[in-house]
């Protein structure tokens, strides 16, 4: 940093005059710059404030993007590009700001930014889809969910069903479209195929000749080593036989190639590569060629992903239609079933059982039609399939128990709720009686089955409106079910599949039941909160900020929630549900929304949680959120180095808080945080003006919180505390570092080293709830790790009761709460104050896991007023 150490390097002869001028100019600037020691402190704080503001702006942009993914907004690509650019600019400023106050100690952040923004910008230009970043072969459990152009429609659906909906699906993997490209390239086929297609289009050859040429060259091609090795590795897992199917992009989507591409069943592991090529070749069968020409898709590149799925030697299999395609029982789900493998039902090879189940909860079985079943399809030993006779005693028997029918119906309706379209679900029951989903796709029904277009507005007008034009849309959509109010863990366990969740707060611990909900109504919370994010991931229609919802919508009431129009109807509005399923666009699958979700996955997730972890570094930053988190931590760290600051900068004013609570707290005011009249270096609690600090202090200094009585230490805790170094013991707090609060009128960053614990509270209270947050971090402790973890668990339990989103890692607790109005945040800060006092030496007293509930009770008892808005 010091200019005196810089010497004059010899000027290169080649330097032209203007270069020289520039050089001298820069040099002069360097000399002119004042000594760092003379730099005025307020400037540094100005920087810090600017970084706080930029931090806030980036967080708002992230929240904005998140909200847009909920479907309430209409946006275009330009909006996405503008937002990403704005974020980039803000982050560059933040990185510069941090380097300015830390003497360029974080220059690697620039390359971290590049690592994040180069692919983001490539996404916006639509150039990333098949780049080297994408896998050649990927298992369904790991396949990316927003890249159907990579994995094809069929495999993408299955990956969603496994990863998001967590329904049972046989394991499998995808040979991606990138592998297909590589295959073409490796065998130099691209241009040849193109030429053959052209001569067919020009009428020089018929489709049979064209097809034969292309198919032959594909079958003769060699699968490149890097793909082949991975295919063999995946296929060799276990002793499975495989179904090899096409998963073309667009298939099962708006266009259906159903039946045009080949599926090979019961393929042994060593046959998978050959089967793969056969399926690729089926992309160019004469029928497929004619179909693509007819659809005007011949000019487009055909790219095929191929799905390999483990064959389940099923006892029973079949199909579920979530709507009756005959149109006769429009309020029923229809289950078709037969013995053995699925071909009997799928290909209509004979009579099958038919079960009609009501769509409406509790899904009564209306009718079952048991057919005489004469033949079944079963796997042949050594590969392939065979048709066999059904044993006489099973011919007239029902293939499914009522329980199994019910389970299949629930799964199918869950798929329909997610995909927002009537579904055709292929399923199997294995030898142990477990129901598995094999495939799910949009149900295509004959025109005749579509009821005449009714007037949706008139139909809806017949139902009572319970709520209209109230609340904020977190996810747009329509859902119906019975109201289930949830306020505790026990309520969650009772929550019925497909019910409407009604709750006071969007507490993060509710996340577990989101996938089961048909809709969510909350009295508080924001569209940018954690639960809203989860709701969007599972596409559950969600409305927050519906004041009085828990009273308006009593337990057990049947309602239909339309968050697109912010209306809640009493009863089940079948016309509206049908309209949404059949006529309305599932915006979640529109390309703009896919793009937005892909951007979000590089922007919003926070991976850097523990600042002491080795990957808490610029290299460890994988998202925009990580970068701002890292910058904030490092900037605050810089301010925390008070002795360093006092030494380096002129005019630092540090106040000492005078109080009965022996914290030795130092206070740095960045503007408006304390009474402007304060003189000298002593500050009294009543002179604090910072809203978050005031609230926290009320809690911390409240009656009975700061018990000064000695705490009984049991032997194990004692030994452990004795073995700690002196620097970590309570008296040493002033030696190892200050207790420091950095304040503004609306902001507080508080570091407290209390005895054995280290607390950090970062909070903002603004008139606009969207800007508000509390971030609480707690770490350290005197006893062994088990006890510390136990204390972490206790804290996590208490905090999540107050709707904090809590992460624990060993003895580290990180808790956040966002976007609540002022009084709610103040209430929680008072709680944190009390909690900091309460847990001061708790780890020593917490002897076993069984003590946790007792201590929780003790805390809640001591803090009776706090319970008023905890879930009762």
């Amino acid at each position: 940093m010091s200019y005196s150490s810089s010497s004059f390097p010899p000027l290169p002869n080649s330097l032209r005059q203007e270069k020289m001028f520039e050089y001298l100019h820069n040099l002069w600037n360097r000399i002119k710059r004042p000594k760092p020691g003379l730099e005025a402190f307020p400037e540094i704080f100005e920087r810090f404030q600017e970084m706080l503001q930029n931090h806030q702006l980036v967080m708002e942009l992230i929240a904005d993007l998140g909200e847009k993914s909920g479907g309430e907004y209409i946006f275009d690509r330009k909006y996405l590009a503008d937002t990403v650019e704005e974020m980039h600019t803000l982050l560059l400023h933040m990185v510069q700001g941090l380097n300015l106050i830390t003497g360029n100690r974080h220059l690697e952040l620039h390359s971290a930014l590049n690592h994040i923004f180069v692919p983001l910008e490539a996404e916006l230009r639509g150039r990333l889809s098949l780049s080297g970043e994408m896998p050649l072969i990927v298992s369904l459990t790991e396949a990316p969910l927003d890249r159907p152009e990579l994995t094809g429609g069929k495999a993408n659906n299955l990956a969603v069903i496994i990863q998001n909906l967590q329904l049972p699906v046989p394991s499998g993997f995808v040979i991606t479209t990138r592998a297909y490209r590589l295959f073409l390239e490796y065998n130099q086929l691209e241009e040849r195929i193109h030429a053959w297609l052209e001569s067919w289009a020009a009428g020089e050859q018929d489709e049979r000749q064209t097809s034969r040429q292309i198919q032959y060259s594909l079958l003769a091609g060699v699968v490149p080593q890097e793909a082949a090795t991975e295919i063999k590795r995946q296929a060799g897992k276990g002793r499975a036989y495989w179904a090899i199917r096409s998963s073309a992009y667009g298939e099962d989507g708006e266009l259906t190639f159903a039946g045009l591409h080949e599926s090979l069943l019961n393929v042994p592991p060593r046959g998978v590569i050959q089967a793969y090529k056969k399926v690729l070749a089926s992309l160019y069968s004469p029928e497929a060629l004619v179909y693509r020409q007819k659809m005007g898709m011949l000019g487009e590149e055909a790219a095929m992903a191929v799905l390999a799925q483990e064959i389940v030697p099923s006892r029973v299999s079949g199909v579920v239609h979530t709507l009756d395609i005959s149109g006769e029982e429009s309020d029923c789900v229809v289950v078709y079933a037969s013995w053995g493998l699925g071909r009997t039902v799928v290909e209509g090879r004979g009579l099958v059982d038919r079960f009609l189940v009501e769509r409406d909860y509790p899904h009564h079985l209306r009718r079952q039609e048991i057919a005489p079943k004469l033949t079944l399809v079963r796997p042949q030993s050594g590969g392939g399939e065979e048709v066999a006779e059904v044993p006489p005693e099973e011919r007239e028997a029902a293939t499914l128990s009522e329980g199994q029918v019910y389970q299949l119906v629930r799964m199918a309706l869950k798929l329909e709720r997610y995909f927002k379209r009537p579904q055709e679900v292929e399923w199997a029951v294995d030898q142990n009686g477990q129901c598995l989903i094999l495939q799910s796709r949009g149900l295509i029904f004959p025109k005749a089955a579509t009821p005449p277009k009714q007037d949706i507005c008139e139909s809806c007008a017949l139902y009572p409106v319970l709520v209209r034009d109230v609340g904020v849309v977190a996810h747009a959509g329509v859902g119906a079910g019975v109201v289930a109010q949830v306020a505790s863990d026990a309520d969650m366990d009772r929550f019925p599949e497909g019910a409407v969740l009604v709750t006071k707060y969007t507490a993060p611990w509710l996340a577990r039941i989101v996938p089961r909900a048909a809709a969510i109504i909350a009295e508080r919370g924001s569209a940018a909160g954690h639960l809203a994010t989860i709701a969007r991931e599972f596409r559950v229609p969600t409305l927050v900020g519906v004041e009085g919802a828990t009273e308006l919508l009593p337990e057990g009431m049947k309602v239909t929630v339309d968050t697109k129009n912010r209306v809640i109807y009493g009863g089940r509005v079948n016309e509206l549900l049908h309209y949404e399923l059949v006529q309305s666009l599932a915006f979640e699958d529109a390309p703009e929304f896919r793009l937005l979700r892909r951007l979000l996955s590089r922007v919003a997730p926070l991976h850097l949680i523990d600042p002491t972890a080795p990957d808490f570094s610029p290299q460890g930053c994988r998202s925009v959120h990580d970068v701002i988190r890292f910058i904030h931590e490092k900037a605050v760290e810089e301010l925390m180095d008070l002795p360093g600051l006092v030494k380096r900068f002129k005019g630092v004013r540090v106040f000492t808080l005078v109080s009965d609570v022996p914290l030795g707290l130092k206070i740095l005011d960045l503007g408006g945080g304390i009474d402007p009249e304060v003189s000298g270096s002593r500050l009294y609690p009543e002179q604090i003006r910072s809203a978050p600090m005031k609230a926290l202090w009320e809690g911390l200094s409240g009656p009975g919180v700061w018990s000064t009585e000695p705490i009984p230490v049991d032997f194990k805790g004692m030994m452990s505390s004795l073995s700690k170094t002196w620097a970590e013991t309570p008296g040493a707090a002033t030696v190892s570092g200050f207790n420091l609060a950095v304040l503004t009128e609306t902001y507080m960053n508080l570091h407290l080293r209390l005895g054995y614990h280290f607390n950090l509270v970062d909070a903002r209270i603004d008139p606009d709830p969207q800007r508000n947050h509390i971030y609480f971090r707690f770490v350290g402790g005197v006893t062994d790790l088990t006890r510390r973890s136990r204390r972490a668990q206790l804290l996590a339990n208490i905090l999540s009761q107050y709707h904090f989103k809590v992460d624990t890692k060993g003895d580290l607790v990180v808790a956040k709460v966002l976007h609540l109005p002022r009084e709610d945040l103040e209430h929680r800060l008072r709680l944190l104050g009390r909690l900091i006092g309460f847990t001061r030496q708790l780890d020593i007293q917490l002897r076993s896991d069984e003590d946790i509930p007792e201590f929780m009770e003790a805390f809640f008892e001591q803090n009776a007023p706090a319970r008023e808005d905890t879930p009762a």
Partner: protein
Amino acid sequence: MKDKLKIMVLDDEPIVCKRLKPALEKLGYEVDTFIQSVEAMHQIHQTPYDIVITDLKMKEIDGMRFLEEVKKQYPQTEVIVITGFATMETAKQSFRKGVFDFIAKPFKLGEIQEVVARAAAKIKGATA
């Protein structure tokens, strides 16, 4: 509800049309959507609409010309302009051409529903 108001939506981004149609139908309007301005222009010469919702920046016929044409043919038709920030200034000019209101993208479904409701109230008030 025999005399439903007829609404035309014109935007060359298909997602805008696909989302607005059901959102407005549910409020009881009859909605036609177009992603090509030429087709929309053809249609407007055949059929009058009570309300026209149009983007400004489009290929072929641009929104400003389209709305002029609409207003010339049917002065009583209410035109609502939806546009990105870049064309906001132009949008303001459109007021002089008798536009009912304009909305900046991205916008909430609720916002446009509200503006349409106001336009509908004005139309009904005028005919009452």
